[in-house]
């Protein structure tokens, strides 16, 4: 036991002290902060006013197009060609909108001219305004009060309730989807990132020939497990640092770049960008729903499937590293390992639509796919026995793959210069 701790310590320290680790740990949150803050910052800066000259050939829309903080509509009576020149001379922030002839019942030809293409949002907002004005004209001509129609525009929002022993609980499909998908994806990343770190570590020891010296002191299995646990700690350290740094950097960056914007303003801005009030309300509702997800339960399940999945797969990655001499051969043997991981993340889309289907059940029990699939299902609160069965299967699967990987590892690390085939691996099992 003392020796396995020594191995874990070395594996951990030698990786955490590497420049690559420090750089990745620092860059990760910067990238994350960049992704979240920079678009918001750019959006907040991009508030220059666009002037739109409107030539309304039927005169139906004058005063109906509403100017706001970003756009002003000027109705003009000049010739189209003359106005085109004016717009061209004025440059980027001047557009010409031409609304063709219409009596309110026919669809007019509408064109926008400008130095450059106007943004999709702007085009859409103009389309909406013209459409709704046309609708109003038609409603009025049919003798219907448009205000009445506005009021009978229902938008329902189904609330999901889970029937459980403690009574009805607020369910939340949208929140469950987000949490499940996020957790599944994290597990996927972790398995790949740190599983292959285990593999390269094993290959390095094998090609350096240091392995023979070490296993004359410790059992191959101890060396393998020491490495797997050591790398797992590296991964957890990196994740924790990323989380802390991301939080810190995002907070600082928001304070610096968005300091004049209050949250309400940002949400107003969001709603101005095509999101209507109801959608904004829904978004707030979604945040409320997120709180309805049982945090302790999800976190416990996440940690279990996160570590279980990593341990199961990293043992297989270690076996591959031990079996091969070089990176090219490694690819060949990695394929059967990566297929179930990639399949799980692809299937995630289907599972999330029907989290209680038969397919979802079986894939969340099978240990090679269960870490990701079960984690996607967990926020939907499947029956407890299914979760427990999945956990037991994962533990058994972990013991099985580790046993299997240990056998290959034991023989493989001392086998040099041999082109390994699957048949050969099968023979090793019986050594």
């Amino acid at each position: 036991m003392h020796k396995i701790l020594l191995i874990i310590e070395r594996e951990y320290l030698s990786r955490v002290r590497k420049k690559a680790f420090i750089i990745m740990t620092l860059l990760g949150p910067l990238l994350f902060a960049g992704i979240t803050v920079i678009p918001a910052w750019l959006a907040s800066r991009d508030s220059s006013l666009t002037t739109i000259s409107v030539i309304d050939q039927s005169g139906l829309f004058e005063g109906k197009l509403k100017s706001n903080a970003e756009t002003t509509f000027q109705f003009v009576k000049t010739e189209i060609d003359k106005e085109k020149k004016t717009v061209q001379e004025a440059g980027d922030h001047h557009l010409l909108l031409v609304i063709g002839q219409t009596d309110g019942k026919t669809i007019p030809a509408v064109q926008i001219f400008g130095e450059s293409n106007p943004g999709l949002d702007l085009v859409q907002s103009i389309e909406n305004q013209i459409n709704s004005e046309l609708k109003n004209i038609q409603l009025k001509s049919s003798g219907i009060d448009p205000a009445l129609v506005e009021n009978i525009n229902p938008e329902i929002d189904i609330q999901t309730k889970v029937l459980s022993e403690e009574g009805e609980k607020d369910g939340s499909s949208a929140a469950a989807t987000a949490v499940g998908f996020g957790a599944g994806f994290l597990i996927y990343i972790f398995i790949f990132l740190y599983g292959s770190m285990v593999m390269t570590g094993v290959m390095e020891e094998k090609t350096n020939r240091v392995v023979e010296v070490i296993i004359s002191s410790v059992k191959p299995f101890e060396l393998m497990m020491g490495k797997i646990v050591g790398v797992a700690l590296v991964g957890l350290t990196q994740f924790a640092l990323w989380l802390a740094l991301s939080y810190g950097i995002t907070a600082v960056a928001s304070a610096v770049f968005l300091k004049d914007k209050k949250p309400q303003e940002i949400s107003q801005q969001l709603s101005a960008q095509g999101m209507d009030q109801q959608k904004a309300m829904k978004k707030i509702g979604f945040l409320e729903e997120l709180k309805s997800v049982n945090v302790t339960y999800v976190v416990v399940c996440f940690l279990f499937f996160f570590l279980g999945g990593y341990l199961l797969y990293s043992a297989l990655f270690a076996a591959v590293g031990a079996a091969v001499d070089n990176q090219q051969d490694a690819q060949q043997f990695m394929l059967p390992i990566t297929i179930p991981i990639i399949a799980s993340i692809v299937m995630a889309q289907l599972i999330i639509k029907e989290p209680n289907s038969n397919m979802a059940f079986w894939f969340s029990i099978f240990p090679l796919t269960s870490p990701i699939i079960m984690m996607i299902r967990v926020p939907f609160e499947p029956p407890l026995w299914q979760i427990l069965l999945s956990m037991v299967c994962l533990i058994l699967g972990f013991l099985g793959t580790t046993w299997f990987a240990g056998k290959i590892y034991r023989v493989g690390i001392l086998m040099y210069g041999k082109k390994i085939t699957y048949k050969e691996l099968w023979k090793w099992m019986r050594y």
Partner: protein
Amino acid sequence: MNPIVETKNLYKRYGDFLALDNVSLKIPKGSIFGLLGPNGAGKTSLIRIITQITAADQGEVLFDGEKINPKHIGRIGYLPEERGLYKKSKVGEQLLYFAQLKGMSKELALEKTKNWFIRLDIKDWWNKNLEELSKGMAQKVQFISTVIHEPEFIILDEPFSGFDPVNSDVIRDEILRLHANGATILFSTHRMDTVEELCSHIVLIDKSKKVLDGSTKDIKNQFRKHIFQVQTQDSIDFTKLPWQPEKMNEEKDGYFQTSFKLGENQSPNELLGDIIQNAQVIGFQEQLPSFHDIFVQVVTQNQEKHA
């Protein structure tokens, strides 16, 4: 006294290939033991069983009279033929790690490592990464890693390869010093000069079987051909000598060399007595077979037997 290592009827099979076939041997305490054999004979398989890297399929290994178990790991030092250290780790840290893996406390490991750095005069290597060292320097580090935990039994697989003659002597002297302090040394080597110079016992393995076993003295005796060589000032006149030579009067460096094969009841004293009357004798010695010759002879015969 128990032998330090005793193997009893070891068998090791890799798939269809029998790597060790009923190998029994005793390595006496305090000996310098040579494990010889052609490439692929089974030496490495045997060493890996003794170092508990792999297990035998049948048979047992005793270490100092006890069935071998993980407790013995710290009492064995092993220098594999394929040298290996962590290229990107610091020399000092690595040695500490290896010593601790053998069961030493951190404090003791630190003290012993420092001693070795002083002894081999490599103090400024402590904080160097291994990849910065030359091959010979790395070999020295590897040697230290083998003996850092002061094992009673040291297995050295081709310990002198990669060393220049000066460093080769440094390492040889260190090995002899460890031996003088009570360690038993097992050499696995193809260099017969090492065997001639250092070994007190040898075992020869060929085609997975032990084919020769004993003290170097006994083995030399066993293979002596009773050929005596005499060096004379002038050529010997064989018309006056009642002995039939193997080779006669070969001139070398101004002297004449003649060799005689003695029969069972003939004594070298009689031969010398007769030659002295015939010519001026400068040297007289028995031509003992070298281990090189013994090795080649045994392995070739074994091949013929199997052919």
